[in-house]
């Protein structure tokens, strides 16, 4: 468990390093500066959380049925 936590920490540690965007081709800078991109991210996170809970519940039910056998 300790190792796993350490791994997650390391994986996430690079988020802070990358922040700027150069000028050049048009990117979604307005979208990002208005802050609304976080709304999309939040929605995606909710969807994934739902799918995760759904899959884990199927897994649990299956394990119960398998134990009955």
């Amino acid at each position: 468990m300790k190792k796993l936590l350490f791994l997650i920490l390391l994986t996430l540690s690079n988020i802070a390093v990358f922040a700027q965007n150069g000028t050049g081709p048009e990117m979604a800078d307005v979208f990002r500066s208005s802050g609304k991109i976080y709304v999309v991210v939040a929605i995606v996170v909710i969807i994934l959380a739902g799918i995760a809970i759904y899959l884990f519940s199927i897994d649990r039910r299956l394990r119960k049925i398998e134990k009955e056998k």
Partner: protein
Amino acid sequence: MKIISQIAANFYHFLQRQMTRMWWKVGTIILLFYTLIAGFLLGVPDKFILNETIRNLYFHVPMWMAMLSVFVMSVFYSIRYLDKGLEKDDLAAVECVNTGMFFYVLGLLTGMLWAKYTWGAYWSGDPKQNSAAIAFLLYCAYLVLRNSIDEEQKRAKISAIYNIFAFPIMIVLIFVIPRMTDSLHPGNGGNPAFGRYDLDGRMRAVFYPAMAGWSLLAVWIATLRYRIRLIEYKNNSLD
């Protein structure tokens, strides 16, 4: 040869043991949360035509990786079936293909949507698209072939052999032929790839976890389907 079969046997038992375990499923979800958040928020290189759709690398490409992972497992179980003749290995092989087909469709659809905004049309007859469609039919034929045979052992044996041959053909169609012709797809036909030289560190940091995460998710769904199928099979054989 003996060593290979020993490794295969060990891998088989490893999969059997880990199937009902929790740790890798938790890991899968953590990886996916990371890639979905970082995939939108981390910086990407600014490129013309691609613009923000360069982020598709984090979402479209892993669909194909997920498909590939379960198809490889399916071939593994098919070989195992031909070797040992256990019915449950055949069930594992077909459920892996079923899950792979789901991700195949997602890959095709996301690719088409992206093509609309970068190439101008959902379907432009690009070699990559056409080969992907042919390979899709190849696997559809696998499922049709299976369902057309009533006798259990015959069905398992024929579909296992078909599956083993379909896999390399699918690989050649999707990953080799488009590279040799003038496909528009990134990485093919001399187009800039998200490969060794183009993919910068920022993208790698999301791309590789995304590949691993979605692959594991596909394997997880395949194991769920397999466990349901196994219970159905046992119930049917009791009657």
